[in-house]
């Protein structure tokens, strides 16, 4: 079980207020790691630190290291743009570009210097996200005409088109209906064969269903962290047990 992302003593500040306190976590390669916790506990903040998306917000500060493939991404000489090319992100509300399905997938690859065959790229990514059969005849229509579930699968396809090592997912199914949710969950489970996935979810059952490891956060602190089965069946901390049994949340 090789760890691909290592977070060490990581602190994060929005202005004066501290959102993450001394977070230390490892995420393993080709596994699905879930971040769970009540609203405002910092799980989304932590996720967005892994691909340095929080740099885009004014007046933020971080301390500590995050390494991906043993390379510290918070060193001064590291370019956040490069980091985001290696770490893909899927957002809570599906956000395809208001362009064609083809353009959505191809654009990210193009700006990253892709020189290969575009048709193959489009077909392979859409096949991997189980969308190819549904859209192969309308690749050049606007992506916004797809259903919510299809749009989210398109966003996943768009993310894997740039060949990331890690995919971060921020509550990817919270805006979808149960049928679409089920399809995406099975897709994610397929994807872990090739990618390492970190998923933030509000839905504990989802974390229980699909993840291999789970971390429970509360008020910006990692309360407990370990294999999903153990966390859910045998939590060590009292707070973890209370959250899982629904006493707060």
């Amino acid at each position, binding site marked *: 079980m090789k760890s691909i992302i290592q977070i060490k003593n990581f602190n994060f500040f929005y202005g004066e207020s501290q959102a993450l306190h001394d977070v230390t976590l490892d995420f393993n390669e080709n596994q699905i790691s879930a971040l769970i916790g009540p609203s405002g506990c910092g799980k989304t903040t932590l996720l967005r630190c892994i691909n340095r998306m929080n740099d885009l917000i004014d007046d933020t500060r971080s301390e500590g290291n995050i390494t991906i493939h043993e390379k510290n991404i918070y060193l001064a000489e*590291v370019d956040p743009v*490069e*980091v985001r090319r290696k770490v893909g992100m899927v957002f809570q509300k599906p956000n395809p570009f208001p362009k064609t399905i083809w353009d959505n997938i191809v654009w990210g690859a193009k700006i990253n210097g892709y020189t290969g065959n575009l048709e*193959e790229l489009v077909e392979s990514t859409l*096949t991997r996200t189980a969308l190819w059969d549904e859209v192969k005849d309308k690749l050049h229509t606007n992506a916004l005409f797809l259903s919510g579930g299809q749009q989210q699968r398109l966003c996943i396809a768009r993310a*894997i088109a740039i*060949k990331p090592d890690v995919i971060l997912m921020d509550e990817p199914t919270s805006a979808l209906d149960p049928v679409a949710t089920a399809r995406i969950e099975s897709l994610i489970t397929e994807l872990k064969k090739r990618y390492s996935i970190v998923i933030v979810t509000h839905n504990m059952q989802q974390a229980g269903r699909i993840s291999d490891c789970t971390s429970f956060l509360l008020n910006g602190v990692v309360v407990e962290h370990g294999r999903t089965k153990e966390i859910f069946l045998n939590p060590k901390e009292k707070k973890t047990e209370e959250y899982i049994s629904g006493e707060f949340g």
Partner: protein
Amino acid sequence: MADSTTNFSQKQASLEKKTRIGESLIHVVLFACALCSIFTTVGIVVILASQSALFFADPQVTLLGFFTSFEWQPSIGKFGILPLLNATLLTSFIAVVFATPFAILVAIFLSEFTKPRIKAIIKPILEVLAGIPSVVYGYFAVGTVTPVLQRVFGSDTVEFYNTASAGIVIGILILPILITMIDDSLTSVPNNLREASFGLGATRLQTSFGVVIPGSFSGIAAAFILGFSRAIGETMIVALAAGAGSALTWNPFRGAETMTGYIVRISGGDISYNSIDYNSIFAIGLVLFLATLGLNIISRRIVKKYQWNV
């Protein structure tokens, strides 16, 4: 299926900062664009101030005399701004007084008494009125309004050049601005206030004048200040209708040159670049600039301070 996703350039390996020359260049270019607006303001201030300094440096001109003496006749060395200032204020005052009843009544009507459908028809008409160039209004003033005034009040009372005609037409010019701003201000009053009033059995009229207007008082005041500021800065209408003879008078039926009229007359003629006439237009321009700037800032402050915190 071949894994075609491996065809990215090898530069992908490292995470280090790439020197993106293109991005830096674009950043610099865009920064330069933003600087233009600073240069414009600095330019205006520097130019107006420096040329005015030359004006005041001339032995014929004194600062006190500029603001207090009653005659503006550069050819005989009289440099008192009061006649020009007075004419400007007179025309603007006439403009605002003329426009006020129309502006308020129409704005209340649009915001409180009509359906959105009718409003959607009237708005474009107002936009057309607002889009007419001021020189066309000037033609209207001198070609139609002045003769009408002469017919009504007698051509002995009303001179060919007069400030009343200019004032009325400037009033028409600022009417769309006033209506739009007052209407915006009225509609921004939260609906629950109106409902409270209706709930007490008030008519629409009582609600408008008793609740909505007092509630948007700051917005209405700001609108009038802005309208007045616009009227002060108006040039072509006064140049055509108010005449080129400077006179210190409150009779609206006589001609009187305004500050803007003077600037456009002098600069439109043959001027030598270092004469006192040339420098005087900058001194007048400086007063105009400071006045409109002051009014605009006050207007914005009022709106911000008394905005509805919904």
